[in-house]
């Protein structure tokens, strides 16, 4: 019996000794040990956002939509990095899975990064910086930047060189990119940005310059050019050129007890006129948006400090003689309620005028509610 007691005592003592040795010595050790087992501590991180919409169009049944965009980040070392986003959504009565972007990035120096893969279009400020649901201040995107179409590509498949350089108190940004470029769609005389199999050997090129004279203000200009016609056809020399101007200003204004946020972007798209049917018209399009938002974040009231008021005007104007030559003008007014720094409720009402050939105008309006969560 004594032997059994001695053996049990020895085992318990040994267990206690091993347990004591493995316990962290202080809170700092404990914190670092816990962090080792948390997501993101092994150079890999999953982040992203989710959203659910409720849409009530005029004279049509109301709909729910939902989406989830996981973003995968992997840092191999201080120079080598990988990022990818997948979009999973139920929208317009369909379930879609899309590779939003996937690119390998290599930091060349403090001022230049090389990236290759599918990447968000650097010329499209809204898509590159503002489109995630928890950042976009309205439940919809401007018509021309069209995540799934529009006048400016959302993504490119190719490579890019990009960076930023501080110059005293200001900063310049620069991006050069080369990609498959869009393809010409002879049905409507427009271009298709979803080009995963190029129709010619020409590759699209683009440049983006940004200038930030003060931290709150960013202005940018971008240029894109690509041959869009199919090789060995009579349209093989047709090219498309895009000019884009963007503007961003966000400032906390003490007198207003809140933050003013102004955003604007205008796109001009020109597709060559080869004067061969069906392309026998001057193929110039333009589109844009201007948006103002105000959040009284510095008032004392807990409810009002989480509110945000938003107004956006956007338009798209296609060529007069094109098969789809609508002029669309839309006004959207919205109120948001922030639940945290990256989650919010949005309530918006939009009113759209569509001017069709002959000058007749039709009007559409709808209500959209959204909950968005960035994580």
């Amino acid at each position, binding site marked *: 019996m004594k032997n059994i007691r001695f053996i049990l005592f020895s085992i318990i003592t040994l267990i206690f000794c091993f347990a004591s040795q493995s316990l962290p010595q202080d809170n700092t050790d404990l914190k670092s040990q816990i*962090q080792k087992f*948390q*997501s*993101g*501590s*092994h*150079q*890999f*991180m999953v*982040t992203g956002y989710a959203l659910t919409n409720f849409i009530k169009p005029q004279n049509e049944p109301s709909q729910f939509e939902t989406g989830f965009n996981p*973003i995968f*980040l*992997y*840092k191999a070392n201080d120079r080598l*990095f990988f*990022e990818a986003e997948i979009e999973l959504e139920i929208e317009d009565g369909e379930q879609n899975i899309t590779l939003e972007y996937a690119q390998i*990035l290599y*930091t060349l*120096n*403090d*001022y230049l*990064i090389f*990236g290759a893969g599918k990447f968000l279009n650097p010329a499209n400020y809204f898509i*590159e*910086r*503002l489109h995630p649901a*928890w*950042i976009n201040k309205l439940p919809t995107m401007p018509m021309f930047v069209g995540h799934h179409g529009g006048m400016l590509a959302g993504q490119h498949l190719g490579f890019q060189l*990009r*960076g*930023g*350089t*501080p*110059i*005293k*108190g*200001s*900063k310049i*940004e*620069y*991006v050069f990119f080369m990609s498959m470029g869009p393809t010409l769609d002879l049905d409507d005389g427009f271009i298709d940005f979803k080009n995963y199999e190029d129709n010619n050997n020409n590759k699209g090129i683009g440049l983006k310059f*940004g*200038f*930030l*004279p*003060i*931290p*709150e*203000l*960013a*202005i940018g200009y971008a240029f894109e050019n690509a041959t869009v016609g199919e090789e060995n056809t009579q349209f093989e020399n047709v090219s498309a050129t895009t000019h884009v101007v963007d503007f*961003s200003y*966000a400032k*906390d204004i003490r007198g207003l007890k809140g*933050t003013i946020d102004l955003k604007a972007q205008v796109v001009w798209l020109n597709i060559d006129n080869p004067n061969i049917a069906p392309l026998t018209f001057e193929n110039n399009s333009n589109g844009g948006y201007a948006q103002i938002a105000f959040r009284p974040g510095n008032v004392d009231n807990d409810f009002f400090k989480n509110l945000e008021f938003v107004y956006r005007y956007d338009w798209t104007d296609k060529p007069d003689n094109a098969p789809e030559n609508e002029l669309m003008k839309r006004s959207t007014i919205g109120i948001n309620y*922030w639940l945290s*720094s*990256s989650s919010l409720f949005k309530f918006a009402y939009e009113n759209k005028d569509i001017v069709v050939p002959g000058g007749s105008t039709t009007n559409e309006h709808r209500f959209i509610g959204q909950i968005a969560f960035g994580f």
Partner: protein
Amino acid sequence: MKFIKKYMVNLILGLGFFAVLTIVGCASTTDIVDRSGAQLWGENCARCHNIRPPQSLTDAQWEIAGMHMRTRANLSGIVTRKIIEFLKTAN
């Protein structure tokens, strides 16, 4: 001739606008590289979205998120390092 005149006027106006912005930018603020990590964090993140509290991610996650945002926002290396260092210190 009219065409050239129109584009010359636009060019001069454009260059003038950039010149004014450059002078304003260079004259009115501290050099970016001399700013603190906290200041750079507020300035760069808030331009597009609400700033996330340092406690919302772990130190290791800030290292990864910092590299992601460096690409997206065209941040220079020194600015990125200062912001990440601040976030890790404040975490």
